[in-house]
């Protein structure tokens, strides 16, 4: 077959489709939506899982995090006053001394407090920690310095402010060298941090760590000035807790020993805690879970997209069946003039391929504008219904779609495949018609 004939077959197909422009457009729309949704869903899924992965990586893959957890109330029923719970300094010593794969351990004690400077008040977290804390949790200093070793040793009443706290307490001044009030105590500001993204929420045992309203002081200072028993005024009544350590971040020497170390940590803690008042979080495990979740996500999104492509394919089949019936007479004429069955099949298949290629190509374009489209959508929503946006889960509010490279050839290929598969039956039905019957058709 000469190239002229091939070209003519395509031109003929396009001409026939243009005879019913609206019908063809609607069919193309079905494929367009299918293909665009493949690209979109995968891009959004990728954006979400990438974000989750970054947050987990923010915890540090070679860390093991142990947190104190307040045991359920039933455990303390009948006992007056607060009961001590959680990690102890003894736990700290035990872990560091008995597990050789632990390089170092960072004790942290956190308390909810109100910070005051002049008329400015900020509610936040007072974090007692060691100088290493900045490096391990990837905090960077904006001005001044983080808590130093001498300050830790001397239990100095100094503090380092997070960027947000500094901005709110000192809107017009440089905080360095000023003194802030926390309840009865006074702390000298020696450093201000850069802003930091929150890390992942870690299931039941750990809330997402925000870092925005933190104030850091040497943990020795906290023990000396405040102690383990902390009372907080809450809606008229006092609430007390007796906790030695809120968190221990254990750094493991080698990445591939993280998991066995975590098992040892769990066993050591279980031996000395009768109630469930500690929780162990292993970011490395979370990272692996996140990878599995991502795969599931891709499969799920792929399934939804496949269904929409299937619907598009059924649309094509429907239209082509109608077209074949309508053009029975034409088929009869062509057969009488020498068309083989395969010529008729090809003629109709070309039409479905044109439909699905146009749908696929525009669908890919529609998929590529995913990022700006999501941004525009978010912008419009924020303008028109700010309340509704605030109620959305954080991942959805902030997701940045990331177009997955292979999704584009995949979506395009599937759409063309769907066109061929769903076009084949109508085309073969056209070809199977008896020429004489077809010629008689009105």
């Amino acid at each position, binding site marked *: 077959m000469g190239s002229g*004939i091939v070209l003519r077959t395509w031109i003929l197909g396009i001409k026939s489709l243009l005879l019913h422009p609206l019908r063809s457009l609607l069919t193309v729309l079905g494929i367009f939506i299918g293909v665009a949704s493949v690209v979109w869903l995968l891009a959004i899924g990728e954006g979400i899982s990438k974000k989750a992965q970054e947050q987990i990586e923010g915890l540090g893959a070679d860390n093991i995090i142990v947190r104190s957890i307040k045991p359920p109330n039933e455990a303390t029923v009948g006992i007056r006053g607060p009961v001590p719970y959680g990690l102890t300094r003894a736990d700290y010593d035990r872990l560091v001394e008995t597990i050789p794969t632990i390089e170092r351990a960072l004790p942290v004690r956190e308390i909810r407090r109100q910070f005051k400077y002049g008329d400015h008040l900020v509610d936040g977290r007072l974090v007692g920690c060691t100088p290493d804390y900045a490096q391990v949790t990837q905090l960077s200093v904006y001005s001044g310095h983080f808590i130093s070793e001498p300050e830790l040793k001397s239990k100095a009443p100094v503090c380092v402010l997070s960027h947000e706290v500094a901005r709110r307490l000192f809107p017009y001044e440089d905080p360095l060298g000023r003194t802030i009030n926390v309840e009865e105590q006074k702390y000298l500001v020696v450093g201000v941090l850069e802003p930091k993204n929150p890390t992942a929420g870690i299931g039941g045992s750990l809330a997402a760590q925000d870092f925005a309203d933190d104030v850091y002081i040497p943990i020795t200072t906290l023990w000396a000035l405040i102690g383990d028993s902390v009372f907080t005024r809450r809606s008229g009544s006092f609430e007390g807790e007796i906790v030695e350590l809120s968190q221990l971040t254990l750094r493991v020497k080698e990445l591939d020993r993280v998991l066995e170390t975590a098992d040892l940590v769990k066993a050591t803690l279980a031996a000395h805690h009768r109630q469930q008042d500690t929780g162990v979080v292993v970011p490395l495990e979370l990272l692996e879970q996140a990878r599995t979740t991502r795969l599931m996500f891709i499969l799920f999104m792929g399934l939804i997209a496949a269904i929409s492509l299937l619907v598009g394919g059924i649309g094509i089949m429907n239209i082509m069946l109608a077209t074949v019936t309508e053009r029975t007479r034409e088929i009869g004429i062509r057969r009488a003039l*020498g*068309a083989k069955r395969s010529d008729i099949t090809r003629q109709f298949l070309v039409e479905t391929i044109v439909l699905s290629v146009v749908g696929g190509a525009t669908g890919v374009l529609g998929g590529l504008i995913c990022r700006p489209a999501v941004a525009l959508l978010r912008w419009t929503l924020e303008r028109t219904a700010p309340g509704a946006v605030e109620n959305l889960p954080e991942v959805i509010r902030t997701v940045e779609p990331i177009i997955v490279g292979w999704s584009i050839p995949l979506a395009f290929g599937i759409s063309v495949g769907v066109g061929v598969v769903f076009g084949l039956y109508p085309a073969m039905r056209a070809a199977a018609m008896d020429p004489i019957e077809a010629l008689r058709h009105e």
Partner: protein
Amino acid sequence: MQLAARIQDLKKEYHLSGEVVRALRGVSLDVPEGDYVAIMGPSGSGKSTLLNLLGCLDRPTGGSYYLGPDDVARMSDDRLSEIRASRIGFVFQSYNLIQQLTVLENIEVPLYYQGRIDSRAQQRCRELAQLVGLGDRLRHRPAQLSGGQQQRAAIARSLVNDPRFILADEPTGNLDSVTTGEILALLDRLNRDFKTIIMVTHEDEVARHARRIVRLRDGLLQSDERMREV
């Protein structure tokens, strides 16, 4: 004398829900090259059935049909298509032009299935349109033409593959007497140029243009009367 077609004891039966319709019950006919045959007979006598078999649109259920040296009864569907594309030109009562194509494109259709559309072939299509008097209507669509003009376009189309045979089923059935005259004049001229024509008709006026009249009755040959030698 060279034979264009030879049919022997040709039979065609249709099976309709247990009932057998015997449309042709054994017809034999020799058609020499350059003949002009009119097939006549009452409605339902099997004229169209015979013409469809001659045109390789269908296979007989009995007997044989030699188109040249080959028995059509034993050919594959694809081979029948090839024969239709290369050796047979059809003219129908209801013209059967493809509505969305122009006159020129309609004339080109058979070439398309022979796989040879080049500029020479296209030139030939223009000449054929000229021949049937549609030289100034090349870009018109069938709906913009009169019945006579459509039938002339159909005749041009039947000629484009330079067929041995022109088969016409009541080609003037939908036309008035003046237009009928024009179409018959065209067919006469083709026959003078040594085309073999087989035409089904009800009208004696029309049949008189042929060299030979074959009458069918109930699927059998009733008479075969030659008026002019080839």
